């Protein structure tokens, strides 16, 4: 009750602030014209911590462009989290993938830098969160996904805070916890130890000391417990710790160690967010009048926005555009399933429908097939083999589109290979078509047949089964399914690369060419090894 009131008065204060700052609008205009970047409020007191429960809605104006780019940056982060979670990555693995991405897209730096950039960082984090609330509040499913990803982001960021920041942040949250006194801790000593024994062991295993001795003694666990601060809180606040029996319970209170607090505030965070999203949903109809924002929000919530894959086309391989038309079939093993099955269909039918042609030919362009070789490749595929067309027909009806893709015809635009988002946004394939994303468009049986043909089996060295891939596809996590397939097929190479200290990109696949480049990169690394041997 108390918290609610506080929030309401906060809201009122914001309102007053806004009306007092009468030249708010001017600030915004000036800023967008690039005249001044210091005329606005950059008081860090609005964002006292690096982390936030996002209890206050934004109140400054931003440009439509900021609105969109900030939201997209955050969305990229959330999608990466989602994909990692659905692939069953551990918290640690996720941390290592997300850290660089966060630094790039949503940095929250330590307060040693100058405060104006800190303010901007926190403002971007704050505003982008609220924009995505608008985009993701419309359906139960979107709300669920948003809460899950945001809560994980919160957990990841909490762990990046220093101990002092964690403590400051925790005490800033209005939760009814009490400190467990020393005498109480003494009284329940054996019970607290029993509840947190394995968790403490898990923490100690990560210490430097363990690296040396490779064992954790009971005495170490006991002295860790000795130093650990305990809090008690009504059990309703920590259902996660209750159901797994990780917390000592006494008379309605759960006894929570400081290291367990994250679980508690993360639960609180997702609860708060869930309530707020419901409120936002009810308020959404009033937004309908603003025709600048609705399309942006609609696009955002489609969720097909994914991380841009920055390729350097043509610079692939040694000396770049070295791929010969004849070589193309031999690269099929490094192609993602969508391209692989386009190739298969092309070679059996000597033909592909328009969208399929576009999807494959731009992909091949991306892996280093130049215009000349491309013409040779397509002409050969279309005109040789039983029942195929003659060269004259090919030249008349098809050559143009392939040349067009290389910017040699019409508007002379150098088209880029399609990313997953583009592929998913095209019309779904009919029976005669071969384009699209197999994880979305193929029937379960066909998909599992194709996966088997690619070399997956029901064990894959414990890395996951075909059933897992099918499950991901059915959940609509197509990119996660594709990434998982990649990881299974390239496990040995990835392991070797890690062993040789090579940088292994484990982010989710968002572009067919990214799949190919990653596969050939790992392949080359393996070859080096063989040469050495």
């Amino acid at each position: 009750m108390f918290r609610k009131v506080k929030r309401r008065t906060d809201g009122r204060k914001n309102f007053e602030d806004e009306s007092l700052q009468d030249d708010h609008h001017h600030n915004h205009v000036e800023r967008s014209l690039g005249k001044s970047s210091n005329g606005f409020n950059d008081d860090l007191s609005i964002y006292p911590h690096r982390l936030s429960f996002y209890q206050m809605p934004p109140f400054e104006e931003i440009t439509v462009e900021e609105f969109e780019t900030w939201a997209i940056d955050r969305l990229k982060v959330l999608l990466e989290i989602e994909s990692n979670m659905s692939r069953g990555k551990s918290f640690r693995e996720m941390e290592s993938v997300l850290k660089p991405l966060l630094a790039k897209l949503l940095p929250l730096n330590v307060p040693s830098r100058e405060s104006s950039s800190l303010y901007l960082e926190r403002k971007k984090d704050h505003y982008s969160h609220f924009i995505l609330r608008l985009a993701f509040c419309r359906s139960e499913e979107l709300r669920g996904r948003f809460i899950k990803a945001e809560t994980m982001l919160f957990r990841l960021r909490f762990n990046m805070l220093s101990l002092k920041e964690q403590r400051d942040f925790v005490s800033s949250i209005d939760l009814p916890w009490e400190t467990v006194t020393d005498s109480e801790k003494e009284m329940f000593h054996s019970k607290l130890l029993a509840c947190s024994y394995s968790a403490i062991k898990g923490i100690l295993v990560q210490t430097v000391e363990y690296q040396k001795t490779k064992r954790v003694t009971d005495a170490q666990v006991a002295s860790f417990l000795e130093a650990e601060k305990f809090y008690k809180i009504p059990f309703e606040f920590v259902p996660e710790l209750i159901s797994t029996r990780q917390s000592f319970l006494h008379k309605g209170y759960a006894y929570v160690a400081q290291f367990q607090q994250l679980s508690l505030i993360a639960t609180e965070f997702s609860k708060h967010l869930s309530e707020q999203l419901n409120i936002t949903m009810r308020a959404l109809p009033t937004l309908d009048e603003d025709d600048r924002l609705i399309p942006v929000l609609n696009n955002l919530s489609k969720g097909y926005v994914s991380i841009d894959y920055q390729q350097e086309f043509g610079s692939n391989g040694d000396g770049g555009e070295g791929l010969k038309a004849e070589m193309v079939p031999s690269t099929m093993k490094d192609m993602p399933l969508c391209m692989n099955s386009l190739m298969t269909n092309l070679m059996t039918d000597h033909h592909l429908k328009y969208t399929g042609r576009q999807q494959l030919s731009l992909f091949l362009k991306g892996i280093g097939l130049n215009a000349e070789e491309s013409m040779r490749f397509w002409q050969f595929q279309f005109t040789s083999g039983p029942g195929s067309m003659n060269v004259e027909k090919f030249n008349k009806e098809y050559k143009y589109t392939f040349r067009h893709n290389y910017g040699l015809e019409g508007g002379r635009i150098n088209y880029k290979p399609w990313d997953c988002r583009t592929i998913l946004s095209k019309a779904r394939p009919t029976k005669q078509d071969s384009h699209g994303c197999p994880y979305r468009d193929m029937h379960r049986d066909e998909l599992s047949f194709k996966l088997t043909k690619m070399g997956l089996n029901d064990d894959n060295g414990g890395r996951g089964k075909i059933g897992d891939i099918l499950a991901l596809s059915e959940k609509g996590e197509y990119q996660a399914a594709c990434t998982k397939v990649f990881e299974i097929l390239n496990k040995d190479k990835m392991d070797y690369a890690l062993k040789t200290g090579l940088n292994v990109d484990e982010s989710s696949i968002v572009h067919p060419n990214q799949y190919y480049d990653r596969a050939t990169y790992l392949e080359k690394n393996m070859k080096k090894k063989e040469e050495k041997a």
Partner: protein
Amino acid sequence: MPSLSESIKENSSALGTPSETSPEPSSQINPSMTSPAEVVGETKFYKPSTADMSHYYDNFLPFKSIFQWLNHSPAPQKDFTMREFAFEYKSGAYHRYNSFSSASEFKSTIIKAVPTRFEIGAVYPVQPKLRKTVSKAMMKPLMKEFVLDIDLTDYDDVRTCCSGTAICHKCWKFITLAIKIVDLALREDFGFSHMIWVFSGRRGVHCWVSDYRARILDEQKRRSIVEYLDVLSVKSKKNMNLRKPYHPHVERSFDILRDQFIDVIIREQDPWRLDDRCDDLARSVPDYKLTSALIRYWKENPNRSSADKWRDVDTMYNSLKVKTFDIQDWKREMIFKTMYPRLDVEVSRQMNHLLKSPFCIHPGTGNVCVPFDPSVKEFDPFQDAPNLKKVFEEDESDWEKTSLKPGIDLFNRFVADLMQDEIRAKRSRDSDDKENSLEF
């Protein structure tokens, strides 16, 4: 962890061979399907007619007490008026979403409808009978007692004395143990105090937790409580994962079960005597060599008692010098697997789940679903559950002159305590609200 290793040593006598302290049990127990107790139980059964039910509702069922229990106040409020009731009729028809505006409407409707029994559900934001006037999204339960349902049919793989709907004194001990363990956890761990245990009329018990804190729990929190209690992971069929050291609740439950294991399981139930069941015992051993050795040995030496077989595991563990697992761990696990309370998770978790009201008559047995207080006396379904037939013989219309009296008195005391607490707590909740609203 010195305390843990010590406790293993302390316990080992109870876990060890039973023969030293007790007479050879195999000669005493005959694991046949009919025991004297069950025969007693059966003669007691009486299927009530519609006229019986009508007379019972009219004269005996304490409507006012039930009203106050669910309403938490003498005058009708939302806790009661927006509460769902469901009726079950003799035809098998089931009528949900009834609701009543007062105690007298509650009583008169039931007397008129004469259901074979009625069930109690959750409190909704609108009167359940008016649910069609609001959107579906509005019909989300707001509050309900936290309930638990323990039923002997869930113990069929360990009890040999009875099966299905039948019960006897021997297998009722499982229920008594379950009550002890669950009651302690709810009071000591979760801090609940307004709990009433109710005989379900045939082979199980219900527990209603009426504390305000329990009533406002959402489903996620209800789930967390059941999962905390559900050490066996009954529903998920996962392997019981007892991390060592044991959680205090597990440790405490073990202390309660350990002392009963020899009597209840080894001697009375004797579950592994029969050849088709002893394979289960052999397979529960986490060592392939030992398992196959046991199966072979018992095939060659049939009809050994459970006590013998329990000892055989020990003997062969030592003679085969098995090192792959700790036999004390295995024994402890078996004690949990055979005796730990088996809960119906869904009944407790789902807020819109309904449960039969106290003081209903079990349509199959004629037994009254009486409340009882396990802290005063262990409940004996053959002694302490009044049967409708007996009640009618005792008096025509005055419950105070019948065997219903102890149950109704107990329930009234429970309701009075609850209401007193409730009124006090409500006053402080309201004044909190007032203080907060003054800030504006």
